């Protein structure tokens, strides 16, 4: 649409013809109040708050339905308009209970703000208000009809946004209510988006209601731990006896890659950190063979001593290291550096949820051919192969749906089973469950489906664990043949958790250094002391070695391989096992030393989502007695007699100080202190436990991770393409098929951690019950 020029409150504005006036004004910094208008959702014109005066039009017009045209003149604030808005609020307050002092929304309520702004302070209303009892629709969602102002945001976000359509409007007039799809129960994806968009306290969250006042919380913007999409999540944190407690998770920071979106796991699955089973003291196996609490000092000394002993006795080859899908890039980087330079082994791996090594190899030398998650929201065409994003990558599914709905993007789906996104698809292709290996050939063929896909000028291809090793390479080779234009094809490879991608990128691989750099030609990593060029053991091989009595020690950080690989407990009885975790998992229960670690919500650093978008995580909460994996590793190294400054470039070797970003809720004092130091030419002294020092090393050494640091620490997502851009061709990756063990989590499960979330287990049970009832109907 061509640009048009029009006048608002005397200011000349320009916007494409047909832009909604409310959007044009907001973009220009002119605030127009609205309850029902919500960007991206269908128009309602129901709340009448956005009324403005348009020249030569007799009645006030709603800015949410007025499209701008050349030469129009508008007034958005005048006594007449203020009066109209004030009266609308007065009318609303007629039946709206004034229970603000106990309402969850009090302090962050749009109705409260509007009442304040338009001065509707005097109550003209002398009648009894309509009352209806509050209803609980699910463990997550409560509905308080009297507070509801019927803006229909919830109905639309659920239907149009989520494609769930679980909410409706029933009755009419003043008796109208929002109603759930089952008999006073919600049978849905339990995403809680309805709660989030509610401008008042009508929809409240089961986990948050009546817990605190909004102004009593600190709000920390970080990244969700539960899936590979990496949604930005705002944690509401309050001080408590144990340190600080997370009381709420929402998406009030709409600047993230998830925009408005957050799923059930992001919103309600944070409570695992508060689980009473949480480990808060190190455990050491005593002479009687039982794990018993120990001091940090003792546990560290004991573990470090044993590891030193085993390294001396059998060399690094006798030690295995298993990393995590949920720890930060800095921790993963440090872990592999610790393994390679301190333990002297390349026996390092992680539970792989997809084949990122093959992905990197296949894309080597083709920069610009990976797609960030934001691009899914604007790509003109998407080919989705395998998987079920609605359950496994809810944000990806949201972006796909939104893109199809608002931009008419064309979605092509090839899958061995029907998935919910089929509803948005332009074409679907059913393939046999074992047919993914042949898909590249099929796509190159002349079926209707393949021809339609081939005809797309610009295509994003999404795939996941169904493709491994050579299958990844043939799929990408098919795509890259489409042409030299980097817009013609872009790929994303879907992994499971917050930092599954980062685990692979940071070299938690026996045959790869960070950035998929081959051990045989380590390049910049030559600065590592004692680096061996021989590939180490994969995770299954380590378990085999343990079974054969050849593994002296195993260090497991934030992983539960015993459960994932169904390991017989006897297998590890001859190995010295050290586990860092939040809970006494099946693996931790077999350990000789267990260190109580902090969760992703209690530490700082960076994570890389499945799409290669790097984001900063910030420390939101505290748990007395626990330490970050980063700190545990540094202390272990120290205990092993290593000069930790060779491991972490802190102090004078650090290039940039931590300006407090990483301290999250505790910002303020520290910020001012470090800013003062810098201003006086004094270098802020970094601690060896400061992960941002390692971030600097990652930026310096890891190919593809030369990140824009300022952008990253400002809270933005920064793209990375490890192993792609710099032209090296990695050697063939290890391709045992059993290396990839995807978790296939649902909307309410999240690996081992998810089991400790009461919120998620309750939702899982609720939905299982709803499903059973529906089936019985």
């Amino acid at each position: 649409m061509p640009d048009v020029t029009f006048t608002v409150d005397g200011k000349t504005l320009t916007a494409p013809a047909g832009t909604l006036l409310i959007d044009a004004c907001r973009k220009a910094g002119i605030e127009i109040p609205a309850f029902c208008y919500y960007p991206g959702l269908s128009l309602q014109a129901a709340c009448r708050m956005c009324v403005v005066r348009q020249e030569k039009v007799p009645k006030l017009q709603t800015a949410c339905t007025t499209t701008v045209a050349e030469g129009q003149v508008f007034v958005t604030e005048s006594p007449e308009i203020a009066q109209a808005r004030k009266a609308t609020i007065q009318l609303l307050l007629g039946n709206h209970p004034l229970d603000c002092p106990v309402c969850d929304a009090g302090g962050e309520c749009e109705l409260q703000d509007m009442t304040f702004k338009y001065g509707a302070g005097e109550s003209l209303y002398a009648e009894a208000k309509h009352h209806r009892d509050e209803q609980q629709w699910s463990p997550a969602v409560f509905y308080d009809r009297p507070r509801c102002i019927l803006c229909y945001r919830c109905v639309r976000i659920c239907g149009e946004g989520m494609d769930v359509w679980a909410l409706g409007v029933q009755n009419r007039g003043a008796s109208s209510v929002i109603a759930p799809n089952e008999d006073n129960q919600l049978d849905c994806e339990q995403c809680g988006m309805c709660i989030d968009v509610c401008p008042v306290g009508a929809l409240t969250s089961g986990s948050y209601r009546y817990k605190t006042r909004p102004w009593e919380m600190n709000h920390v913007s970080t990244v969700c731990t539960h899936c590979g999409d990496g949604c930005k999540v705002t944690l509401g944190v309050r001080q408590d006896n144990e340190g600080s407690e997370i009381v709420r998770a929402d998406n009030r920071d709409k600047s993230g890659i998830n925009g408005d979106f957050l799923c059930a796991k992001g919103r309600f699955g944070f409570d695992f950190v508060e689980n009473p089973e949480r480990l808060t003291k190190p455990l050491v196996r005593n002479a009687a063979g039982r794990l018993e609490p120990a001091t940090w000092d003792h546990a560290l000394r004991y573990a470090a001593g044993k590891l030193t002993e085993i390294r001396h006795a059998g060399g690094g080859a006798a030690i295995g290291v298993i990393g995590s899908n949920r720890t930060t890039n800095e921790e993963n980087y440090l872990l592999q550096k610790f393994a390679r330079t301190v333990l002297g082994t390349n026996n390092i791996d992680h539970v792989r949820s997809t084949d990122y090594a093959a992905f990197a190899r296949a894309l080597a030398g083709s920069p610009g051919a990976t797609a960030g998650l934001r691009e899914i929201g604007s790509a003109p065409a998407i080919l989705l192969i395998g998987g079920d994003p609605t359950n496994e990558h809810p944000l990806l599914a949201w972006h796909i749906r939104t893109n199809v709905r608002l931009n008419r993007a064309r979605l092509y789906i090839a899958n061995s089973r029907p998935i919910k996104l089929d509803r948005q698809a332009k074409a679907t292709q059913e393939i046999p469950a074992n047919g993914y290996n042949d898909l590249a050939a099929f796509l190159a063929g002349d079926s209707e489906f393949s021809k339609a896909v081939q005809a797309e000028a610009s295509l994003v291809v999404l795939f996941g664990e169904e493709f491994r090793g050579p299958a990844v390479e043939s799929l990408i080779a098919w795509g890259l043949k489409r042409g030299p234009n980097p817009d013609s094809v872009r790929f994303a490879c879907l992994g499971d958790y917050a930092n599954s991608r980062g685990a692979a990128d940071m070299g938690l691989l026996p045959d790869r250094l960070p950035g998929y750099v081959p051990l045989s030609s380590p390049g910049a990593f030559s600065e590592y002391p004692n680096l061996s060029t021989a590939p180490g053991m994969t995770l299954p091989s380590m378990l085999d070695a343990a079974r054969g009595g050849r593994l002296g020690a195993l260090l497991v950080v934030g992983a539960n391989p015993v459960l994932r690989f169904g390991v017989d407990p006897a297998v590890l009885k001859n190995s010295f096992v050290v586990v860092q975790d939040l809970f006494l998992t099946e693996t931790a229960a077999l350990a000789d030393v267990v260190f109580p670690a902090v969760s992703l919500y209690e530490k700082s650093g960076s994570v890389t989502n499945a799409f290669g978008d790097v984001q900063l995580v910030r420390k939101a909460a505290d748990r007395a007695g626990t330490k970050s994996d980063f700190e545990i590793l540094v202390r272990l190294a120290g205990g092993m007699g290593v000069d930790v400054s060779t491991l972490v470039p802190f102090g004078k070797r650090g290039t940039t100080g931590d300006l407090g970003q990483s301290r999250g809720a505790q910002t303020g004092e520290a910020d001012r202190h470090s800013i003062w130091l810098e201003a006086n030419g004094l270098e802020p002294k970094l601690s060896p436990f400061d992960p941002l020092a390692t971030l600097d090393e990652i930026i310096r050494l890891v190919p593809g991770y030369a990140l824009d640091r300022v952008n990253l620490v400002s809270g933005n997502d920064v793209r990375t393409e490890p192993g792609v851009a710099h032209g090296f061709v990695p050697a063939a990756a290890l391709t045992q098929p059993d290396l990839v063990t995807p978790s296939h989590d649902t909307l309410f499960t999240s690996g081992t951690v998810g089991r400790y979330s009461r919120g998620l287990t309750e939702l899982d049970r609720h939905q299982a019950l709803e499903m059973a009832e529906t089936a019985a109907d």
Partner: protein
Amino acid sequence: MPKLVSHPDEVKIVTQRFGQGAAHIDRYIELGGYEAVKKCIAQGPEWIINEMKASNLRGRGGAGFSTGMKWSFVPKQSAKPKYVLVNGDESEPGTCKDHLIFLHDPHAVIEGTIIAGLAIGAKTGFIYLRGEYRYLLEIVEKAVADAYERGFLGRNIFGSENEFEIITQSGAGAYEVGEESALMESLEGKRGVPRIKPPFPAVVGLYGGPTIINNAETIATVPHVITMGAEAYSAVGTPRNGGTRLFGLSGHIARPGVYELPMGYNLKKMIYEVGGGVRGGRQLKAVVPGGSSTPVLLPEEIETLGMDFDQVGKAGSMLGSGGVVVIDDQTCIVEFALRTISFYQHESCGWCIPCREGTDWLKKSLTRFHAGFGAASDIDNMQYLAENMLGRTFCPLGDAAAMPTIAFLKKFRKEFEDHLDGKPCPFAKHVELAVV
């Protein structure tokens, strides 16, 4: 059976076949029916629209928009099918004219629908009747079936190249569905909530296709306009207000009924001569001129008032649906206002805040006020509320509630004040109304 009435001043155009068995297709044809549509087939769309424009026929639903103009807004070319939609959701209190049309002359509606379809190039028409009119729906359905049987509907109607289908539809109780876009929503199987305009129905209407929506009386008038000729029809009324109107006299009137009178007929004369004056020889207190949503008029305001869209508008009210409700001097205006607002509270679709909350608030306040628990500030508050609903709601229902309320409060403020300070209602028969 509704009683038919007559008066010498009537000009029987639309009602000319009432009481003559014209619901039967043969009788309708005998009385000259289905000739107009044949003429239209011969003359073509442009001619029809020009005739309609020249006739000065204005929408009988209440808004009074020129029918010919409305039809001319429909684009000639359209990728989507076009539709004619007949609004028989007659629900405005005081109005029962369409009731008689469906009962006595259903074929006139069918014929008018076909003509409208020819004019805009539609192949399908819908006749939507309110759910309560089940017996009338059956009459209309029979008439439609008969018309199909004669080849007046279906393919090659009247042996021409044209095809036209009519589908009848029942509502299920909702005043709001009388609003044209809410009617389309209801017909599409949805809640009867109006649509955002623009786009207007003539461009994007039923099922997304260009649609004209006309009141049943308007449609039933169309064949007569064609038969009489636009000039003759227009000559019956006043300038820019062509033809006759079916006025429903109800309330405290001696001879209630539906009378067909020329547009511009004097209201006082209508009450005292046509309707035989106020029942029981009582004094006239007030009159609601065009259905319950139109502001009430005082006796002194009707002296020289001609009943057409322009004159009633100038007098501060509206011709509306032509439902004239006569109120005698023994009536409590507070109670009347309460009953009026109770209706709009019950019928508000609830979509927008000012109407949903405003009607509810007004009903509650008036209920309390009429029960003797009013405060002096209530009168100003109610007026403030009503004035702040006016022009601010999503659709005209809010205005329909606000306008009469403001008129009652302004014109009968004294009577409201007489209810204050615990004084019993001077006219009280019913202290409290049952909640509908």
